Each structure stands twice: as structure tokens, then as C-alpha cells.
């Protein structure tokens, strides 16, 4: 499937293709070595632009992929922990274009090849402009995009998927234990050029503990419709033990609330910039060892 994608988008230049392959390769290679990939989530600009940049730079050392949230004040799917991070970022003046700038700078300054995935809502994209958004993703070298409230029937999603696909940027859908097989099947279709995001329970990020039972069930269903689409699992993963458990079933594990909570803790203890970044770094070191 990836090949088909690459072909269809072959006129899009090497850069994007490489990135996508890299991400894909990453998952597969690590899987071969019985290693799952680790995806760390932060809200970009949390607690502010400078500190966030240091944190992301630090994260490149421990994360195979970084998921950067675009702050939105009327989020309908984030846990209170992430809502607070959004509030901190918005207060510090964060927005879509600064998010691109931030990621761009992280990439340049670290010379990392760690892929970045954006997590956002539709409204910031619409206001920023859909076409401009796709162009900026391409320019910044974004590897994939998650749009929480883009529903399967919305014209916006179709438009965005088309645009991203042309630029060889991955589009990632989230599925949960209560979704029907039909819904899961359609979602997989939309993720053809990337990976699918499984939530381990029905609820909000960070609100409960990861539910392995659900993960196994969902992986089974996904595999029914796709033999090889990479699977990422999130929601409720907080410990290295949980990462290991989930890794048995998934190509990637995603940790969000736990990291964001650490940022809050650090900030509340007066840490900023590099100071805060090393604080997060040592946490990630323990988590991922």
C-alpha cells in the first residue's frame, strides 16, 4: 500500500517520500527487533514557545515520533490535563503558524530525523486555510496529521486527505472500542498512507488506565481489514511496564497526558526552558528504558 501511495505521489519529490518511508521503516524495523516505537505527545507551545522548543528538542532523544498538539480553546475531546496545556499555550500566544515555526526550528537545531505528527481540530485549520495548512505541513516536513473532529462524512476531511496524500503526508484516524467494524473499516481506508490510532478505552485521554483487553480486540479487528497497517495505541499509558505490555500488540505506543502532567509539574515548580526540558528528559528516559 505504501508503495502505491509513493507511486501516486511520485511527483512530490524525494523529501516527503523519504520521511514517510522513514516513519514506516522505523515502525517495521523496530518491530523486527521486537521493539515497538514510542510516540510522545505534547501541546506545542506549552508552557510557552521557548520552553516548548527545548522540551521537543529533548524529546527527540527518547521518542521515535513526536506528536505535537495544536492548541484550541474549544476542544471537544481532550482531557482536562491537555485542556490546561492548551490554555497555557494559547495564553503564551501560540497558534498554527507558530506551531510550524517551532517544529521547523526543532528540526533544524537538532538535525533530527524524528518524525513529527500534528494533532489538531478542524477550526484552527479552517481559519489558517486548508491549502495553506497542507503547504505548511509539507514545508515543515510534517510526517502525519491527526484531526480529532474531522468526521468521515465531512467535506473538509476529504479535501484535506486528498491534499495531504498528494504531498505524501500521512493522515491518521483514531478508533475506539465502541466503534463499529464498519466504521473501523472506513477509518483504515483513510489511513492508508500512515497508521491507525487505537484508543485503549472509551473516554478521555489520561482519565483511566490502559485497557489491554480492548487493545487486543481492536488489533484483531484492524488486522481483519489490513494485514500491515501500522497500529499505534494510546489512552491511559503512564508507565514503562504499560508501554511494554502494549508493545506486544502495537507498532507504537503513545503517551500524552503523563508527559503533559510532568510539564505542568515542572512549570509549577518554577522550571522553564532547558531546565524544564531536562526535567522532562529524565522522566522520558525512565519511562522508555
Amino acid at each position: 500500500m505504501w508503495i502505491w501511495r509513493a507511486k501516486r505521489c511520485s511527483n512530490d519529490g524525494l523529501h516527503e517520500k523519504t520521511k514517510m518511508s522513514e516513519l514506516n521503516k522505523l515502525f517495521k524495523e523496530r518491530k523486527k527487533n521486537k521493539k515497538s516505537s514510542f510516540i510522545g505527545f505534547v501541546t506545542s507551545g506549552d508552557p510557552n514557545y521557548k520552553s516548548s522548543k527545548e522540551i521537543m528538542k529533548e524529546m527527540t532523544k527518547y521518542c521515535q515520533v513526536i506528536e505535537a498538539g495544536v492548541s484550541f480553546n474549544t476542544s471537544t475531546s481532550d482531557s482536562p490535563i491537555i485542556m490546561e496545556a492548551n490554555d497555557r499555550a494559547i495564553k503564551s500566544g501560540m497558534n498554527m503558524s507558530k506551531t510550524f515555526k517551532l517544529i521547523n526550528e526543532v528540526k533544524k537545531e537538532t538535525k533530527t530525523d524524528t518524525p513529527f505528527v500534528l494533532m489538531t481540530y478542524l477550526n484552527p485549520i479552517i481559519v489558517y486555510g486548508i491549502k495553506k495548512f497542507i503547504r505548511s505541513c509539507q514545508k515543515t516536513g510534517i510526517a502525519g496529521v491527526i484531526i480529532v473532529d474531522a468526521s468521515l462524512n465531512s467535506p473538509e476531511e476529504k479535501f484535506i486527505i486528498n491534499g495531504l496524500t498528494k504531498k505524501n503526508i500521512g493522515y491518521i484516524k483514531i478508533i475506539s472500542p465502541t466503534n463499529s467494524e464498519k466504521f473501523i473499516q472506513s477509518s483504515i481506508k483513510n489511513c492508508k498512507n500512515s497508521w491507525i490510532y487505537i484508543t485503549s478505552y472509551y473516554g478521555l485521554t489520561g482519565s483511566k488506565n490502559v485497557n489491554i483487553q480492548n487493545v487486543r480486540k481492536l488489533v484483531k479487528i484492524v488486522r481483519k481489514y489490513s494485514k500491515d497497517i501500522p497500529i499505534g495505541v494510546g489512552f491511559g499509558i503512564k508507565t514503562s511496564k504499560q508501554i511494554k505490555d502494549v508493545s506486544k500488540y502495537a507498532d507504537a505506543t503513545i503517551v500524552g497526558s503523563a508527559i503533559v502532567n510532568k510539564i505542568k509539574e515542572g512549570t509549577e515548580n518554577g522550571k522553564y526552558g532547558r531546565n524544564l526540558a531536562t526535567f522532562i528528559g529524565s522522566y522520558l528516559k525512565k519511562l522508555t528504558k
Partner: protein
Amino acid sequence: MKIPPFKEINPPDKFGYWTNKKTGEKFGGQYISSLLVPNLKRVEDGFFKAMKDKKFLKELEEDLNTFIGVQTPIHFSKTLTELAGGEKKIGKIYLKRTDLHTNHSHKPISAYACCKLAKYLGFKKILTETGAFQNGRAVASACASLGLKLDIYVGANDAKKLAINKDISALHGARIIEVHDSTKSLLPAMAAALRAFQSEPDSMYVVGSVAGPMPYPLMVRTFASVIGRITKKQFKNLVGKDPSTLFAVCGGGSNFSAIAYPYYKSKKPDLYAVESAGDGIKTGRHGSTIGGGGKMGILLGMQSKVLLNGENVAESFTAASGLDFSSIGPEVAYMHSIGRVKFLTTTDLQAKKTFMMMARKHGLICAIEACYVIFAAIKEIRKRKNPRENHLIHLCGSGEPNVAQMMDFMKKQK
């Protein structure tokens, strides 16, 4: 009087959009996380099933008639008619007395009907949001009467305010959950209620206006349109024909569509929706989504006109807590975009003066929300200057919750 049955005259497409064919703008839809998909499907399927279930409809009708008390009168207002210039100049002004419902506004109809649907579908608990507990109270009353549990999400700042309807919600046994996100007001409270809906599969979300992801905008206006269906028939019986104009206030739009819906496809009456201009549109401190130049946006599961602050949703400002919303329902936004509905605005000061006028000269304590529409209506009716016209104003609620605020205003005026 029997409640005239519902007829779908303005259906959205199968994805939940009302599309302006000329501009291509789409209003409505279902912009939600995958996690919400099954819940919304259960509600949507349940709603369409219930609307075909004669037993459900019959019971609902009886409850609306005798528990909510929807058979409210239309009052020929001599006071307003004279104020606008007299019968010989402007015709006659009538008030639809929605203030006489149980819980004193239009909200209880859709609140009750949605909760009744929840019970019908086997849900045990309701989730809703509220600003000044107008919706909170209406849902709390319905839940108490139907034996459902209730969590009300309210912005932490709103929760601090003294409000009789807050106390009443508590007396009805509702659990009140404070939301500390963002502006700590209605918008994040609504987002929080939707998020809770994503976590509690045995609970049904009930929205306070014709907003949110499909089927909510459709469902709320369908239930709420009871007011308009009764009104249309009543007005014909009373005056012999449809009104020339119809004025209703518009926060989220439930109050407007509740009365205007049955007239959407006819030429008459001219439809006016009135927004709160707060301190004045120019000050930027207002709640006028249309009048204040709102743009297309996607929030709380729907696509509609929104007041934006960059990529985020802007805060709205108004003295009327019921109008404190930075967007409007997709169907109303659509009706505006195709030119069927005209939008007007009234400032807070004008509304407060109208409140005092209504108390002093009309003997009515109107919801402050209703005062925005009364002021704008009188102004517009004066302009129309047509003695052959009959005007209908939606007196959408009674003003007990505004008494403390208005006492302050009265003292300052002195």
C-alpha cells in the same frame, strides 16, 4: 387544543448539512471524535425512531400540554402597539406568552423532550451544560420528573454567580460540575459536557440550544417547534391570517427556530432574529454572531457562523446570559445565508431600558433576553409604518433570574 403534528419542511442532507446552493456554504454536520460516533448514532437512530412512534409522541404531547404547559396564550399588547405609534400607524402587536411555561422559558420543551427520548432509549443519566442555569434548570426539572440522573457542566466563573436557577437545579437533585478550562464560561462547559458524553456510554448528552453535532440541531428544533406549530394555528384563529412579521431573540437559535420554524417555507411573515450587541458592536464586546461579522467555523461538533479570536473561538459579551454564545445554530445560520431571516441587534443598555419599560408600563417581568427582541421589534415596526400589519413578538421567558441585576440598574438610573 391538540399540538399540530410535526412536518419536516427543511431537512438537512443525509450527512446533516444545510447547504446554501448559491454560495456552497455548508451548515451543520457532525464534527466529532471517533469516540463519540456510536453515542451520536444511538441518539440519532433513537430520535428518528421515536418521531415515528405514536405512543411516544402521544405521551410526549400529554406531558408537554400538562407538565410544561405549552398551550400559552397570544396577548394583543395595547401597550406596545401604542408605544410603536398606535394601531392606525403600525397595525397591531401581539406577544406569544412563552414566559408562562413551567420553568418560564422555551427551553423546557426541548429539554423535556430530549430527556424523555433518553428514557425511551434506556439511558439512565443526562449530561448537559449551562451558562446561567436556564438550560440547567429546564433539564434538571425534566430529569427529576422522569427519574433520570443529571450532571450539569458549568464554567467555574458562571458557577460563582448567584443565580436562582442554579439553586433550583440543585433542589431538583442535579449534580453541578464546575469547568475550569479556558474562559471558564458556557463554551468550555459545553465542550466539557460533550467530552463527558465520550466517557459515559450510559449517559445521554442534552444540549441547551439548536447547536452541537447532528442530530442535536435537528432534534432540538424539531422538539422546540411545538411553540411555532401551536402559535401558527392560534394566530390564524385569532387574527384570521399569518402575522406580517415575527420577531424572536437569537442566542444559539433555539428560541428563534422554536417559533419561526413552521414559517420557514412560506413568504409571510418576515422573520427577524435579534442578537445582543452587548456594549455595542463597535466596542468588540458583544454577542452578535451575525451582526458582529462572525465567520464560518467548526466548533462543538458543528459548522456554522462563529465569532473568532484568531484560530480560537472568541468570548461573547452580553448582559443576557441566555444570549452568551459565540456562534449560532447551523439551520438558523443557513436561513440567514439564503436571505429568509433578517438579523437585528439591540445593545445591553437598550434591553435593560426595555425591561424597565415592560415592568412599569406593561406589568410584565420579562426575561432580559426577551427585551432585546422587544426593543428591536418596536424600532423595526415603526420603520415599516404599515397599519394593515399584524406583528408577533416571541416573549420567550420571564425575568425572575434578572431581578437582582435589574434592581442594580434601577438604582443606578435614579
